[in-house]
């Protein structure tokens, strides 16, 4: 079958290539030659994947096309790239699923610095991984000449993260990272969870304190993009939520995230509904005057538009049921 592939090309060494001009890469790359899209046609079977097409182009049409790949079977994590505007593994993306209006577009993700063509600089990704101290700090005493005795369930609990192949697809499409480059990011936080919840680790508590700090677990925007992007079912967001849970249980509650949850629960418990009016101030911390002041212009705008919620927050009928539920399973929110 014939397939059409549109490839984002970029080579800071070369003169601009022929092709339709694409958007510039973000700084500091805007000064380099523009990114251009080149269109190739390849003849491949129905089950072929995007990587087959790229290898075919590289081998038989244009040896200057640069793409990282090794295993071809979604194990090595080399070939994450943007395919039709989202990060995917090229070796796992079938052409027939990604051909849109007769063409599949591949390029280096704009969220990462580009080196050449489909090869981006993965250092931001590796640096984040390093930042979470991703290694076991052995609980003492280390058993002599034998293994730690731990339940199998506690190991199986970690296998979801251990399946991470560090392809970086989650980070490439992470919206929090796109806005805040210092955000630790989905894969690294998932790895952080893997060690924080390892029964053999001695530093769990210190880890939770670290990860609760700036650019950590509370800076995830909870958008499920990483869950969607992950080719191995790691579901980084799920791991981040587990970390949040653990951090709160360990007493690291002096942060907007926990206050937000507490205020939220208080509102639902008290009235059955969310009360937007009290949620924001309570989340920021009632004595965090600077942060409170920052929200005033918005509040004023909303008030002027008649958009502020009713000052008297109505309780829902049958509130007793809700109170009962909180009493029964509300845990910390009772």
């Amino acid at each position, binding site marked *: 079958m014939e397939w059409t592939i549109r490839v984002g090309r970029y080579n800071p060494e070369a003169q601009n290539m022929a092709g339709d001009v694409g958007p510039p890469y973000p700084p500091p790359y805007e000064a380099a030659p523009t990114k251009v899209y080149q269109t190739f046609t390849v003849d491949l079977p129905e089950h072929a994947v995007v990587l087959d097409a790229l290898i075919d182009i590289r081998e038989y049409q244009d040896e200057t096309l640069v793409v990282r790949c090794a*295993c071809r079977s979604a194990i090595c994590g080399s070939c994450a790239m943007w395919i039709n505007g989202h990060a995917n593994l090229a070796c796992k993306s079938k052409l027939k699923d990604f051909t849109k209006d007769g063409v599949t577009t591949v390029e280096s993700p704009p969220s990462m610095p580009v080196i050449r063509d489909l090869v981006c600089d993965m250092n931001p990704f590796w640096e984040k991984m390093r930042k979470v101290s991703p290694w076991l700090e052995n609980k003492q005493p280390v058993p002599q000449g034998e293994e730690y005795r731990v339940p199998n369930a506690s190991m199986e609990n970690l296998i979801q993260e251990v399946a991470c192949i560090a392809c970086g697809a989650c980070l490439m499409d992470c919206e929090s990272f796109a806005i805040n480059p210092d955000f630790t990011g989905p894969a690294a936080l998932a790895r952080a969870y893997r060690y924080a919840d390892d029964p053999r680790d001695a530093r769990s508590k210190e880890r939770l304190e670290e990860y609760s700090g700036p650019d950590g677990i509370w800076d995830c925007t909870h958008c499920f993009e990483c869950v969607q992007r992950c080719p191995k079912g790691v579901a980084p967001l799920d791991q981040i939520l587990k970390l949040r849970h653990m951090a709160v249980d360990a007493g690291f509650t002096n942060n907007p995230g926990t206050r937000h949850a507490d205020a939220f629960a208080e509102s639902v418990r008290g009235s059955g509904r969310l009360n937007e009016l009290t949620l924001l101030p309570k989340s920021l911390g009632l004595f965090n005057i600077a942060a409170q002041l920052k929200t005033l212009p918005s509040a004023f705008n909303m008030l002027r538009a008649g958009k502020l919620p009713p000052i008297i927050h109505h309780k829902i009928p049958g509130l007793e049921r809700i109170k009962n539920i909180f009493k029964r399973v509300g845990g910390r929110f009772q």
Partner: protein
Amino acid sequence: MILDHDVLVMGAGLAGMRAALEAARHGASVGIVSKVHPIRSHSNAAQGGINAAIGEGDSWQTHAFDTIKGSDYLADQDAVEVMCSEAPSDIIELEHMGVIFFRDDAGKLGTRAFGGASKARTYFVGDITGQALLNTLYDQILKAGVKVYEEWFTTSLYVVDGACRGMTAIDMLTGELHLLRAKALIVAAGGCGRVYEPSTNALICTGDGIALAYRAGAPLMDMEMVQYHPTTLKGSGFLMTEAARGEGAYLLNSEGDRFMKKYAPNMMELASRDVVSRSESVEIAEGRGTDGCVFLDVRHLGRDAIMHKLPQIHEIALDFIGIDMVTQPVPVRPGMHYIMGGIKTDVNGASPLPGLYAAGECACVSVHGGNRLGANSLLDTLVFGRRSGAHAADWTRAAAAASGPAQARETADEAFLTAEQQRVQALLDRPYTGQTHARLRLELGTMMDEKVGVYRDEAGLASALEKLHELRRLYESVSVGDKGRLFNQALTFALELGYLIDCAETIVHSALTRKESRGAQSRTDFPARNDTEWLKHVVVSRNGAAPKPTIGFSPVTITQWAPQERKY
């Protein structure tokens, strides 16, 4: 640029990282040079597990015997003893590093069954054992702060006065070629699976370490012993782990028969790999295959067991040929998987070339002999990675610096770097010839699969050799279609093709030399094992510039297990 370390490690898979970690623990300044990021290494593809005799009722001697029997008595028994007796402590150490091994009900390490083993002694993490180990070792490398030169492609080893003193490598991100000097170099660059097409191996498994050591003068051993894995996926050749059969999968022919009952009535599907691959080949050749394949059937294990214990192969079958293993058997065929042979070393990983060590698939200690047992390769990387790291670090302390006055050495080093830069530049500058590395690589691979596969004979091997001579001649005219510096893959692929051809030649010469059938070498013209004449290793060394290597032999070390007939 010239960079210095006490110990350099080429390759960042399990063997390389384990070696680097141990050398660092022994106080050496260590640098790892890898053409891909460590996490991308091919060790991640090992699915099933890692062997050790830890459990009650098992002993390292039984493990050693299984290994030796599996090797068709070609393994050196002193080396196997080292590997099997040290296996338990290495597994425990991995557990202490954080590997999340499967546990039994008591919370102790639990096992699964594997091919060729008389006891269930394979420790595992789902079907991603290699990946789990690789991740953990990489985390340990980060913890230890070992310097990693990621995406540096090695172009040559540096030999001074008959000793290995480092390497030259291209930093892919800049295109610069650098000299990295060291007192010892550990080659842990993996196998040469891409000599064959198809192969279960990643595209990066191009025998760089084997070929460069060979060029540097180190002898290669057992190169004819190429393992065909019995269950590789139809078409792409992806690996379908032996753990499937360990968990109870059947192999069926086109008539729906569990044909292994004819070939290995006791062990059935769990006979050693060479036996199962040959059985499949016979079934297919005699017309009881379908499209050149037999079937791997796990349906009777049930959805839960499949999704729980074999999720990765379930996903691979679904993704790449659209088959749901829960409801359908999947077509598989024997496919090139592993090379038992490699750089000849002693039990400390030291090659006969001073300063040069090797560990992992590129090395030949020899613990696998004619046929490697499943789940022994991860073990090999760890035991001999550790041993070579320790020995190399200790050796560097004792090793004299390169001879001659310092200034003269600097000049010589710079001259070597310049000469290497010129050699690579000449390849890059070669004018357009129309000859591409990709075409030759494909031709090489399919030819090797056809003529140097499961079954071999004199005529086929001779014609393979002839074809190789032609390919080598054509290789001299390959031009590089990319003249840039940054991440020039066309250049590294062309260099890799040179490594592949070297490996192929040593494989074919070794296969021609061994006039018997043993382990993975099945000669239809010499169908029987011949212990009187061939209970010895074939050793090949480079013979100057001549295409034909010098061929020698090395005795097999027998300690306590006299060769017997193999029955499964």
